[in-house]
C-alpha cells in the first residue's frame, strides 16, 4: 500500500492524540455491500415467495427418490422369503447394500463382520431367535427378545433394505473362521 497521506484530508478530530481522515468509502466496499443486499433479496424471493418445490424438504424428497431409483429400480419390491434372501446372499453386487446397512447400524452390537459383541455372533451355527433364513428378516424388522434386538422396520428408509441386510447376515454364516463370541442359542441346520 502506498503512503498517499498528503491527499488525505485530516478532520479536526483529536481524541487523546488520535486523528481521523475524511476519506470516502472505498468504492469496491460500497459495491460489494450493495451486491450482498441485492443477493439477499433475490435469495429470499427465490426460496420464500411461496413457489412449491424449493424447500429443504422438497430437495430431500428428490434426493431420496433419486437414490432409491438408482438402488432399487431394477429390484422392484423384494419379498422377505427364503428364496429371495438366499438369492441375494450369493450376489456380491446386492450384498454391498446389506453390508452398508449392517455397518451403519449393526456392528456396534454384533461386531465387525458379525463376530459378536454385546449381541450374538452371527458367523457360527448357533442362533437364538432364528430357525430358518426368513426368520432373519423377521427379527431385523420386528426385533426380538423384548427389545434386546431392536426393531428396524421404522428406522430403515426402504423395505428392500431389510431383505438385503438379511441376505448379508445369512452370508456371514461360516465366515468367522471359528472366531468371535462363543455360541449362544441352539444349533440349526444350514440355510
Amino acid at each position: 500500500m502506498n503512503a498517499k497521506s498528503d491527499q488525505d484530508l485530516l478532520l479536526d478530530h483529536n481524541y487523546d492524540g488520535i486523528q481521523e481522515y475524511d476519506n470516502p468509502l472505498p468504492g469496491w466496499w460500497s459495491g460489494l455491500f450493495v451486491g450482498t443486499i441485492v443477493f439477499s433479496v433475490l435469495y429470499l424471493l427465490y426460496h420464500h415467495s411461496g413457489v412449491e418445490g424449493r424447500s429443504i424438504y422438497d430437495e430431500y424428497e428428490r434426493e431420496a427418490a433419486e437414490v432409491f431409483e438408482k438402488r432399487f429400480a431394477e429390484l422392484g419390491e423384494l419379498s422377505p422369503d427364503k428364496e429371495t434372501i438366499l438369492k441375494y446372499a450369493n450376489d456380491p453386487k446386492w450384498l454391498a447394500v446389506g453390508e452398508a446397512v449392517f455397518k451403519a447400524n449393526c456392528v456396534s452390537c454384533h461386531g465387525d463382520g458379525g463376530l459378536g459383541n454385546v449381541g450374538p455372533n452371527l458367523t457360527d451355527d448357533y442362533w437364538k431367535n432364528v430357525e430358518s433364513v426368513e426368520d432373519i428378516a423377521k427379527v431385523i424388522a420386528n426385533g426380538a427378545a423384548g427389545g434386546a434386538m431392536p426393531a428396524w422396520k421404522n428406522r430403515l428408509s426402504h423395505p428392500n433394505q431389510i431383505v438385503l441386510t438379511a441376505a448379508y447376515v445369512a452370508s456371514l454364516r461360516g465366515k468367522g473362521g471359528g472366531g468371535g463370541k462363543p455360541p449362544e442359542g441352539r444349533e440349526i441346520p444350514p440355510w
Partner: protein
Amino acid sequence: MTSTASPATAAPADGDGLDRFSYDDGIVRLFFWATIVWAIVAFAAGLFVAVLLVVPDLTFGLPYLTFGRLRPLHTNAAIFAFAGNALFTAVYYSTQRLAKARMWSDVLSRLHFWGWQLIIVAAALTLPLGITQGKEYAELEWPIDIAIAVVWVGFFGVNFFMTLKHRRERHMYVAIWFYIATIITVAVLHVFNNLVLPVDALKSVPIYAGVQDAFMQWWYGHNAVAFFLTTPFLGLMYYFLPKAAERPVFSYKLSILHFWSLVFIYIWAGPHHLHYTALPQWASALGMVFSVMLWMPSWGGMINGLLTLRGAWHKVADDPVLKFFVTGVTFYGMSTFEGPMLSVRAVNALSHYTDWTIAHVHSGALGWNGMMSFGMLYFLAPRIFQAPLWSKRLATWHFWVATVGLVLYIVPIYVAGLTQGLMWRAFDDMGNLAYGNFVETVKAIIPMWWVRVLGGTLYLTGAVVGLFNLVKTWQQRPSSYEVPVVAAAPLSKDYQDPPPPKPRASAVPEFAKRFDVWLQLAWHRIWERKPLKFSVWVTVAVVVASLFEIIPTFLIRSNVPTIASVRPYTPLELAGRDIYVAEGCYNCHSQMIRPIFSETERYGEYSKPGEFVYDRPFQWGSRRIGPDLAREGGKQSNLWHYVHLLKPQDIDEDSVMPSYAFLAQERIDYRKIAPRVEAAAALGAPYGDELDRAEELARMQAREIVASIVEQGGPDATVLDDGERIPLEETKIVALIAYLQRLGTDLYAQPPEVTARADDTADEEVDR
C-alpha cells in the same frame, strides 16, 4: 450533555477554568493481570480437552475430567475470563483517556473487577461438577447468571455511562460507540437467553422449549460472538492501533457506516447456526442473508485497521505490538469472510457438526481476540508499569510462536472438518453410505487432532513466555507509580455545532439537496456528543432487529406443528435427561437429524419440530464428535447401553468416548424427581398421575430396565472396590439409559386415545 465535575473525580478548577484530575490506572493493572493469567488457564483447559480426544483414558474415570464437562470450562474461560478481562482492560484504559475523565467511581471499578473474577471462579467450580444449564456459552446456572447481570449492568454499565456523562471531551470517538453497543447488547442477550424457572439453588429449567429455546440460544450464542468478541475488540483496535502506529484513522465515514451496519445486521445472523434443523426454514434463511450482508460491515473494520497503517508499515517490522495487531486484524478479516461463507446453506450442509466450525472459531479466538489482546498488553505494560518492556525480543518471539501455533491449530482442523464432513456424506455408486460406521470417520481425523495438540501447545507456550516478560517488566516498576495530573476544561454549556454542510450541487431538486446534506453525516457528529441519544438508537437497532425474528418464532403456530404421539418424559427419563445435560453430552452428540439423505440413511427419519416441545433445554448440539442421538431410543438394547457407558472401547476399540462407569456408582436422588416433574408441569407439560407418584413411577421404571439388563446377561448391581454393593436401580446409569431409550421414539408411538392436546392433532404433520 454537559458536566459539572464531581468532587470525587476532579480537583477544583485552578483559576484557568481547567479541571485537574488523574486517570485510574490501578484498575487497568488489575484487569491486565487477570487477562494474561486467565489466558493461560483458558489455553491450558483447551489443550487438555484437545488431548482428551486423542487419549480418552486421560480422565482416569473421574467425572470432573470428562470432555463433556471441561469443554464448557474451556469455552467459558476463553470467552468470559480471557477475552472478558482483555476487553475490560481496553475499556478502562481507553475510555478514561477518550473521555478525559477518571472512571466515575473507583468503588464500582473494583466491584466490577472482583465481582467478575468471583464469577469466573464460580464457573471454574460449578462446571466440572456438572452444574450447568446445558446451553453453549450460557452454561452457568441461574445464581451465577444473576451475578453476571449485576456486575455487568450495575457495576460496569453504570460506571461506564456515568463516566461518559462526566466526560470532558465533547464528542465520543468510535471506540466508545463500540463499547456502548457492547454493554447494551450483551445485557439484553444475557437476560433474555437465561430466563429460567429455578428448581433448586443449582438447577433450573428454561422457560423456552425445543425450537424456541434453540432459536433464543443461537440468537444469544451468535451475538455473544458479535458483541462480546467483536464489537469491544473493534473498540480496542480503534484506540490502540492508531496509538501504536501513530497514524490517523483511515476513514471517519467508514467508521460511521460500518459501525451502524454491523450493529444492526449482526443481531439477525444467529439462526444460520440452525440450517436444516427443525427451526422453520424462513428463520435460518434470514440468518443466512443477514450473515452474507454482514461481510462488508465487518470488513469495514478490517480496512480501517489495515489502512490506518499506511505510511507506518516499516514500524510493523520493528514493533511486536504492531505485529500482533496486524495479524489480529488480518485474522478478523479472514474469519469475517469465512463466517458469511459458512452461513450459506449449501456450505453449511457440509460444514455443520464438523471441525470446520471449530477451526473457524479458533481463527477468530486465537487469531483476532488473542492477537489483539496480546498486542494491547505489550502496548500497555511500559505505560502502566512505567518501565520499559523487559524484552522486545521475547515479545517478538511470543508473536512468532503464537502465529505458528495458530496455523498448526487451524490448518489440520480445517482438513479434519472437510475430511469428516465428506466422509459422512460419501455414497458408493449404489447409493450406500461409504463409511457407515461412524467411528471410521473419527479414526480418519485423529492424526489431525494430534497436530492440533502441537499447535495448541505452541500457542500456550507463547502466552507463558508473555507472562514471564510482563512480570519481568513489572519488576522494574518504580517504587511508587507517578500519577500524572491531567488538566482539561469541563464541557461548556453553550456549545454551538458547526454550521450544517451545504449541498454540493445547486441545480438539483430540493429533496436531492437534503439527501446530499444528510449524506455528509453532520447529523451523526451531533449524535456523537449525545451519549444518551446515541445509546437509545443502539438499543433500538438491536432490539427492533431481534423482535423481527423473535416474534414470529414464538407466535406462528405452524412453526411447530404438534405431533399427537409426542408425550412428556416419564419421571425417570426426566432425571436421566438432567444427567445427560449435566454430563454435557451435547458437547459431542447432536440430537438433530437434518433432512439430508446421507443423514437419514445413517441416523433415521429427520427430526420434526413437534418432537422437541418438552425439551428444556433443547439439546440439538453443534458438533458431532460422536454420532447423532436423536433416534437413539430402541436402537440398542439396555445391556448394550450399560456396557457402552461403562467402557465404550469394549464396544468399539476406536471410540474416543470416555468411560462413564461412575454413573453406575453414583446414586440417583429419587426424592429430587418430584420437584423436577412439578417444574416441567409448571411450564406446561401435561402430567397427571406423575405429579403425585413421581418417585414411585421412577422406581418402577428403573426396576424394569434393570430386569431387562439382567435378562440380557448383565449384572443387577455395582460392586465397589470396598465391597459395597449398590443395586443398579439406585444408580444414575439406569436413569440415563431410560432417557436414551426414549429419544426419538415418540414419532412412531401410538397417540394416546384421550389427551388434553387432542384438539391439536388437526395440524399434525407427520408423514412417512
